[in-house]
């Protein structure tokens, strides 16, 4: 089990959250006509064995979207912040 320190609700079991995937992938502009940009956005992932910035939504709590920095090798969480305040 992971324990995620929600900045709104405090430490909670990760079962209260929904995973939202890699937070480092930037969505192309809505009218970007370049298929390559969309291909990369939809499909290509760094998938690091190590620190990973990722989205989690606290669905059974405050319902905020968070950005969690977690090590994918051992699940150690370095930081948790509100997704909205993070730079894109």
């Amino acid at each position, binding site marked *: 089990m992971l324990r995620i320190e929600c900045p709104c609700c405090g430490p909670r079991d*990760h079962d209260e959250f929904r*995973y939202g995937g890699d937070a480092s992938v930037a969505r192309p502009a809505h009218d970007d006509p370049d298929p390559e940009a969309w291909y990369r956005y939809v*499909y290509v*992932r760094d*998938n690091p*064995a190590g620190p*990973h910035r*990722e989205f989690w939504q606290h669905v059974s709590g405050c319902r905020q979207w968070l950005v969690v920095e977690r090590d*994918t090798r051992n*699940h150690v969480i370095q930081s948790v912040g509100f997704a909205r305040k993070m730079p894109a």
Partner: protein
Amino acid sequence: MRYSAFSIFRNGLSGQKNWQRAWRAAEPKGAYDVIIVGGGGHGLATAFYLAENHGVRNVAVLEKGYVGGGNVGRNTTVIRSNYLLDGNTQFYEFSVKLWEGLSQALNFNVMFSQRGQIVTAHSADQLDTFSHRANIMRLNGIDADILDRDEVRRLVPYLDFSDTARFPIHGAILQGRAGTARHDAVAWGYARAADGHGVDIIQNCEVTGFVRDGDRIVGVETSKGRIGAGKVGLAVAGHTSVLGQKAGLELPIESHVLQAFVTEPLKPLVDHVVAYGADHFYVSQSDKGGLVFGGNLDGYNSYAQRGNLGVVREVAEAAIALMPCISRVRLLRHWGGVMDMTPDASPIICPTPIDGLYLNGGWCYGGFKATPASGWCFAHTLATGKPHPLIAAYGLDRFRTGRTLDEAGVGPSAWLQ
């Protein structure tokens, strides 16, 4: 030494003390024609078929741990070819055909047991989609039967057929030739057979980087030093991104943990492989009597090779919804394996844009059944430089060109399932 009734008899007489080790403990030479990275089922099968089918014997398999320590020894051993999409159907059926002769081909009993797989349907619509699948399978020469509720009940009476079943069983699809195999034996059998052809199987040898000559890959850096190679094939299951990145490959892959579970041993109860059509749960009974089952991914990127308790609960809930009679059975063990999840749940097996580098990965949680066909086709691809026709659909470019094989319907986010 070949295994035979006579060799068992002779070794019995001498107190079982004179068996040879199954494969040599090889140390790396300076260079090989082909280096396979990853001593799992796929890597070892590839090495075997390179030698057996193509006469390429100057081959090394480099394994960072021990042979069989990865997913080949962690999976729930289900083998089937009840796929729907062109490309998948033919490939997995070719694999089942190879499984049917594998113990003979390897002179090693992989205990392939064609006990049949039943997937339950829980609505009329679901049974319709299963009928569609069965028709496609039959058109491809694959066995498939559609069962109504009474027929399912006759075969697997221990499922929940009561009035209170959460998702009542409407019927099922059955593939009689599907089944299970002893997963460790598959790794050991391929290792021994490849070794018999002169392939060096080198354990405790981690590949940490690549050696280049211009743009071309001409070898690997390892924990046992630098080794030259005419061609390098990656078959590292859940770690394809880690190695791919070192070679400069950008991949549509996320690594996720899948768990497996074994209960205490029971008397014979489950004769088939049974999969629950209303949730992600499937079960078979091992020869020792334990019920072996699996469910969903843990659901977030992970290289940790261990799972979490939330999934234990979910899988137990699904198990009891389908089979109330096991509610008091104790779970003995559970463990996790790290898998490459691709956006369309189909594998990536192809030459890569990097000269000298070939890729076999992205098997998601279904690659054990593919082991023989994967090895066969990857060996062909390595030997000839061209994809085998049966893996033409599994190229890396299919995402860019929109020709995905979305068999499981997972979409671009593996964790959404």
